[in-house]
């Protein structure tokens, strides 16, 4: 069965946009819902502060909905951008479906992740209403860092949509979808993890506001280590998009590319979540006992380094698949 260029274009546009919004909307919805739940609980405890708590909730939800806005923008681009660009035929379908997967999976993690700091922010403002501005600031910083994997995913999506895939044929189709899976799935875990760490920091600072400087430092370092799987994914996506001109153009090449994409992509989920949990408890403990912050930082880094080990194994397998074997 031979499909015409228009058919490939329709498959690509509708499949890609569907994946982008279908997956990307899940995360932000869960995160914003969690925020609303915590805000309700907080208003139950402090009904006379409901104006302040509602405002904190709306700020947190507004920042937390940005991943789904990213997904919406990419979805609109996929549906409406003119098709006489870089790719045609099945390559167009591969590129748009890849872009949709990329931003969809990436914004899933970021959306849920952004829900943790905003939920903790609502709870914290209820406990400590005089420090509302400080708590809201830390909440927004935590959410902003939790969104950076989603921004990496948007970058790779834009590259997929506007730059020609290398070569033609089965390998190029694999590169289109593979780069999408590699970046998208590997941005899922770090988004969740950075958000969890941000939530822990907000909890700690709302209970012990004077320790803000040290807790923020621990949070930023913890979130930076959480981002590592997303960097691995971005690296593999760049290798696929720009350096793989001489890979076999048959089913073996396709298998190599998809295998590498699944390895580095899904391999980033667990370490991202795990490092996030480490960061969350470290931030809380650092706020509680700031005099031991060096010890806490060291333990957090050791724990996060061991959690990252399987992400490194996955990266090795991906490199072997793409560049060796």
């Amino acid at each position: 069965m031979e499909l015409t260029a228009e058919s490939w274009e329709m498959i690509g546009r509708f499949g890609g946009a569907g994946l982008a919004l279908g997956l990307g909307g899940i995360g932000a919805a869960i995160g914003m819902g969690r925020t609303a739940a915590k805000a309700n609980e907080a208003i139950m405890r402090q009904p006379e502060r409901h104006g302040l708590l509602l405002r904190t909730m709306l700020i947190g939800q507004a920042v937390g909905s940005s991943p789904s806005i990213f997904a919406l923008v990419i979805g609109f681009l996929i549906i409406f951008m003119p098709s006489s660009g870089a790719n045609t035929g099945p390559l167009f379908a591969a590129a748009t479906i890849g872009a949709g997967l990329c931003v969809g999976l990436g914004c899933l993690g970021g959306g849920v992740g952004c829900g943790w700091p905003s939920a903790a922010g609502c709870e914290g403002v209820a406990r400590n209403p005089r420090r509302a501005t400080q708590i809201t600031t830390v909440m927004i910083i935590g959410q902003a860092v939790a969104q950076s994997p989603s921004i990496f995913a948007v970058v790779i999506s834009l590259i997929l949509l506007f730059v020609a895939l290398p070569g033609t044929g089965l390998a190029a189709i694999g590169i289109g979808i593979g780069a999408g899976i590699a970046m998208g799935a590997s941005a899922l875990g770090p988004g969740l993890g950075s958000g969890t760490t941000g939530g822990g920091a907000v909890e700690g600072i709302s209970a012990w506001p004077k320790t803000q400087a040290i807790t923020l430092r621990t949070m930023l370092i913890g979130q930076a280590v959480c981002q590592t799987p997303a960097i691995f994914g971005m690296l593999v996506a760049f290798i696929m998009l720009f350096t793989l001109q001489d890979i076999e153009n048959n089913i073996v090449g396709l298998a190599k590319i998809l295998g590498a994409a699944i390895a580095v992509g899904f391999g980033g989920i667990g370490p991202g979540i795990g490092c996030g949990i480490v960061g969350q408890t470290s931030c809380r403990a650092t706020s509680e006992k700031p005099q031991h912050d060096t010890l806490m930082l060291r333990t957090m880094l050791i724990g996060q380094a061991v959690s990252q080990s399987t992400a490194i194994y996955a990266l090795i397998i991906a490199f072997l698949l793409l560049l060796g074997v």
Partner: protein
Amino acid sequence: MIDPVMIMGITEAVLAQAEPEAAITGPDIIKAGALIGAGICMGFGAIGPGIGEGFAAGKACEAIGRSPEQAGLLTRTMLIGQAVSESTGIYALVIAFIMLFRG
């Protein structure tokens, strides 16, 4: 809703993009299966140890926060626990290597 005939048709159309002279043969399919299997193996095998070791380290950080003078003992326990959690990740790595180099 999802028409199997349509899926077959699209798959056939995608696979028809391969180089015309390189028809898909038996050894090729096996090698392709091994390579994608290695990827799936390591990809999903990395999820569990990542989350598990994260839990272990998280509780260790909390415990050290409560009693910092026990830091040495607590860190050692955390590392032993994480090493045991790592074992399934190593199994996945071994199988992935076998599939890459012997598939």
